[in-house]
């Protein structure tokens, strides 16, 4: 295994770990807003690790650019959606 492959494997493990942690957070946290923390933060970190691993594996600058774009779009959408869902979850009806 080359050094790049080792790094890729480590990044994959990190990515899987954060997706897993996000799910555990969604299942364990006590209230809806805390669960939203887990969804927003852990998930994006998982996607970031996976995107870097894929970029290393492809080894192509343009594809790396597209991967970066995918991650940035997901980051932006997650940050915005989190605020909206958090606000909506404040209403008693949605929380019930």
């Amino acid at each position, binding site marked *: 295994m080359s050094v790049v492959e080792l790094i890729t494997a480590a990044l994959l493990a990190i990515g899987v770990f954060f997706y897993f942690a996000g799910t555990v957070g969604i299942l364990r946290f006590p209230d809806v807003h805390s669960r939203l923390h887990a969804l927003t933060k852990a998930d994006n970190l998982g996607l970031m690790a996976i995107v870097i691993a894929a970029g290393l594996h492809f080894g192509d600058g343009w594809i790396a650019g597209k991967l970066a774009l995918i991650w940035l779009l997901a980051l932006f959408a997650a940050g*915005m959606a989190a*605020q909206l869902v958090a*606000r909506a979850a404040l209403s008693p009806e949605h929380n019930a």
Partner: protein
Amino acid sequence: MSLAFDLALCILILGAAALAVFGRDLFGSIVFFIVYGVLIALAWITLGAVDVSLAEAAIGAGVTGVLLIGAWQGIRDGGGGEPEAPTPWPLHLAAGGAAAALCGVISFAVLSLPGHDGLAGEVPENQGALELGNPVTGVLLGFRAYDTLLETLVLTAALAAVWSLTPSQFWGGIPGPNHVKPPDGVLASFGRMLPPRGLIVAVYLVWAGADAPGGAFQAGTVLAAVWILIVLAGLRDEPRLSRLPLRALIILGPLVFLGVGLIGMLLGAPLSYPEGQAKPVILVIEYALTLSIAATLALLIAGPARRR
């Protein structure tokens, strides 16, 4: 490892489908249907059908969710809710029987397909005449273009059917509710910043469609999503349905498609492309279809006119 992944995916798809059907909570069923859409998109990837996967990701994961949640809200606001009385058992039996019969017919059709690959071998052989790199686009707009033509007409007909539900005093009016417009809330900001990027992605999908996965349907869906987001964010209202430019936009795609077929008829071969000019003609049809599909899908989701 691929096998384990495929197996897990199959089980999850069946699980999500079962929960969507048997769930007691209507909203929960919608959520499972959205999840089901994402999983199906992944399944199409593993089957090597990236074009279909793109369409499913855009429709199933994006637009259907908006449509179903809107429908759920309509049911709730209309006073309907979860059904109180259980459905009578003969109805269950009849529905189950019909589903099983359909399953049987499809299984029979699939099992009696000739050979292993069907026509898959003949497409690349004849692909050269169309000068398109993407075999799916070749099939959709070359070898079986009449199918695609009829599909776009079905979409237009569906919109006409939805419009026919308009109460007569609102005919030709504006669909959807009058969205409140807080100019600098989070939702409005999202609606200001995301659509330009979505527009670029849509153009990219049309461009890619000639030689790689992508095409009119995928791009049209992304455009429709952009349209819907702008409306939901309250930045622009839906257009008045009686407006001529809007109606022209809706029939633009089918019209161009039909026009090309009729020109072929004048040249002696109805519904065919002129020799050697297939690619540019197909591309023109793709662009027209993208715009029409975008407008039709967005208006299908908006529903019949509700305001004057």
